[in-house]
């Protein structure tokens, strides 16, 4: 799409996305007033991903780029999900080990059995 001229799009699309980002940010901020739990987590992630998508797709013009560029830029970060997964498993293991090894014995009742 008119790459020789650079990325030119009607101004209205920027104003629409701008307004949408404001709205989504307000919703994001609103999640702070919800009770903790999976609903809140899901909403935080949803609004985050929507905002990220609109910023990358429209403001950074990724939606109009060719697939060669899109895949070269979006592909490698997708691999970071592996790192995040591994570190989540590792964090889980660390907390269990810490609780097992460093926490105070629950009560002295069990001690005389040994």
């Amino acid at each position, binding site marked *: 799409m008119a790459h020789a001229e650079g990325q030119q799009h009607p101004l209205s699309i920027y104003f629409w996305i701008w307004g949408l*980002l404001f709205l989504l940010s307000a919703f994001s901020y609103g999640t702070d007033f919800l009770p903790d739990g999976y609903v809140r987590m899901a909403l935080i992630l949803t609004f985050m991903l929507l*905002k990220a998508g609109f910023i990358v797709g429209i403001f950074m013009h990724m939606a109009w780029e060719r697939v060669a560029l899109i895949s070269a830029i979006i592909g490698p970060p997708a691999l970071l999900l592996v790192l995040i997964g591994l570190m989540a498993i590792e964090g*889980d293991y660390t907390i269990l080990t810490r609780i097992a090894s460093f926490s105070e014995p629950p009560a002295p009742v069990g001690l005389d059995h040994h």
Partner: protein
Amino acid sequence: MAHEGIAAAAPADAGWQSIVSDWSADKATFRVPWGKAMMWIFLLSDTFIFTCFLTGYMNVRMSSPVPWPNPSEVFALTLFGHSIPLILIGIMTFVLITSSGTMALAVNYGYRRNRARAASLMLMTAGFGAVFVGMQAFEWTKLIMEGVRPWTNPMGAEQFGAAFFMITGFHGLHVSAGVIYLSIVAFRIINGFYERRGGNYEIVEIAGLYWHFVDLVWVFIFAFFYLW
């Protein structure tokens, strides 16, 4: 679509076929100005840096047996006699979103070679960036006075300070660098630097990519550090 035969169309120009034609045609792979391709690759590397910070933060938060300080309370401000949770961070988010909008408009006016509008919108963007950094400086000062250090804090898990200063500090550094970058480009637009080079205003889009990325990183920091 398939009836015309494969030879009818020259190199396939859409979808996954276009990847093959772009990478194998013995020519530049990315059909964008080289500066834009390089900015994207720089941003890719920056993505890895910020993901490492956020993943490290996730790991220490998960593995601490001490309760994590509640960001909703830590970052609350008392305004007009009411304690409003997370209000400063909320305002900072809106400031950054606003600056992203003015930046997107600047790119558009740059390509139209409307120098006055492009430059003034970029200076507005830089101004919002400076406001953001100022508010961050206020936030850091407030937390440091409350005794938050990279190794300890009075509210809970010790790792909170390290994660906070590392992540917001690195992001603030990016915003500060962006303010300088945008200002330099804006002044060059005003003094005709790009007119003398053929009137090419790609640089506005390239600088814009950097600025939108800084906003993008904040979206993730806001979700995972401040809201979670």
